[in-house]
């Protein structure tokens, strides 16, 4: 991330302007960090303590809030989120890389149209298709099943995934493919044995972005799922809040559990995260 070291001797001096900016940046830091810190801190408090001394550290560290949150529903939401996210990621990667291979390795009539269909899909907001999708899922009889989330997620993640992988595939030298063909490799063999293995960085990038999307997706999951037992974390937390009423400590513990996986993923995969977001910045 950091820039290559140029000559910076005269520019690294900290003048008054730099101090002003440092103060502004630190206030910004505090504005972001404090609410997050407060969430974690209050998740270890009882309702009374949150209510009466909102700023103070917990007198008693109630770790059992986490156990309670886990037992009272978060475990099931967590499991659903895992199932939906993993299925979405694998489907998107497989279908998307297949399509990217077809679009990048062949010249054929209509390939431009298919490419445009992908780009158009990237621009489209899910809100616009919401009602027909709802009707479609009812018609297919998969409303209120995992598929009601997985299929739309896959559909809305495919465009950006195809475009990212296609760009990567285009950079793979043609000779590699030609020599494999001479060795008797089928097109699918070339895709599976040559293209996929050398495209790990971009596949990881797409996997990370799709995980981020499906873990946090909210709109589809509240509309296409009715049963509490099938809800993913973002939708489930709403029910969780209503069920707990004033058990704030437990609610906050649930919120921390919900947020942690993606933050941890980011810490380990920061490079892929940012690369993908920048490349896909044409749309979210």
């Amino acid at each position, binding site marked *: *991330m*950091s*820039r290559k070291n*140029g*000559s*910076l001797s005269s520019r*690294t001096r900290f003048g008054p*302007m*730099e101090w002003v*900016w440092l103060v502004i*940046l630190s206030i*910004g*830091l505090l504005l*972001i960090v404090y*609410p997050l810190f407060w969430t974690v801190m*209050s998740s270890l408090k009882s309702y009374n303590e949150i*209510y009466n001394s*909102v*700023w103070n550290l917990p007198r008693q560290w109630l770790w059992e809030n986490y156990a309670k949150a886990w037992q009272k529903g978060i475990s099931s939401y967590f499991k659903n989120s895992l199932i939906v996210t993993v299925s979405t990621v694998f489907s998107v990667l497989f*279908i998307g890389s*297949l*399509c990217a291979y*077809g*679009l990048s390795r062949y010249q*054929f009539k209509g390939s431009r149209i298919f490419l445009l*269909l*992908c780009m158009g*899909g990237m*621009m489209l*907001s899910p*809100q*616009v*298709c*919401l*009602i*027909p999708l709802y009707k*479609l899922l009812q018609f297919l009889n998969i409303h209120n099943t995992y598929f009601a989330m997985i299929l739309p997620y*896959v*559909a*809305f993640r*495919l465009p950006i995934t195809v475009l990212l992988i296609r760009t990567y595939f285009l950079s793979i030298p043609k000779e590699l493919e030609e020599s494999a063909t001479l060795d008797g490799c089928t097109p699918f063999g070339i895709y599976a044995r040559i293209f996929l293995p050398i495209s790990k960085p971009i596949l990881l990038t797409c996997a990370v972005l799709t995980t981020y999307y499906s*873990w946090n997706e*909210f*709109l589809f999951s509240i509309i296409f799922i009715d049963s509490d037992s099938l809800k993913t*974390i*973002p939708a489930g*937390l*709403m029910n969780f*809040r209503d069920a707990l009423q004033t058990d704030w400590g437990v*609610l*906050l513990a649930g919120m921390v559990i*919900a*947020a942690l996986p*993606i*933050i941890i993923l*980011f810490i380990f995969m920061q490079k892929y995260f940012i690369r993908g*977001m*920048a490349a896909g*910045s044409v*749309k979210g």
Partner: protein
Amino acid sequence: MTHKKRRLAPLLFIAPCMIILLVFVYIPLVQNFIFSTESFSAFSATKEFVGLENFKTLMKDKVVYTALRNNVYYAIISIICQVGGGLILAAVLEDVAFRKISPVFRTVFFIPVLISMTVICLLFSFIYHPQIGLLNSFLRQIGLDGLARQWLGSSKTAIFAVIAMSQWQSTGYIMMLFIVAIQKIPEDLYEAARIDGANKLQCFFSITFPQVREMLFVTMVTTTIGAFTVFNEPYILTKGGGPGTSSMTLAVHMYQSAFVRDRMGYASAIAVLIFLICITLALLQLLALGNDNSEAKTTKKRRNAK
């Protein structure tokens, strides 16, 4: 390989993707236009054709205007805070003076982007809470009791409280995009400017700003599209656009028309309105980027010619 097989192969590779896109994106998109001319409920088998009736209702619906106004507020404030603020933050953090500490700042500023909107909304419902809320409690402690109020309970402040939360969450995202864009600027441009005696502000306006122009445009369009499709924030934080309809947005109004009032046809008409706004913005971006791309190509050619 036979000739026919050779022609069929690419289609086999792209077929699964295209079928999914057609079934779950493009056909619903077209269907939405048809639905907008009909009147029906969620579980009804029949639909009644009503022509442009839904759009006439739309024009007369006061809530639509409230929602549009809120979406416009959302867009304006988001462009100023997220795009403007994000660019300034990125430029400052990429300044050599902050090189050592900037990774900490940019990671922290990015954390809210990673957290799901539900969690953030629940957190802000604590921050805005009239009794225990951190915001009111903070205002009272620094002696600004007069400013403490029911942030989400008053129809005057609710939408701004929602918008403020969005800025808190998303500024870091736009900042990160600008950081990536700034890092792509060749160092020798700054080098040359320094030799010419340019100060940091001059460097920003004559190098950084023109060099990130494309990203500036992209982020402005994405932020605006985001502002016109915003759903989660008002849906969760003000429980569907409350109090009354004061913090309604188009997407929430569409959701409520469809799934609360069961007027699916009318909701589709609202979706058409959202679509028209978004497609206009997206085309604007395509047009501008198309021009930019051709510019980029010519500069590349020039560089190659050297």
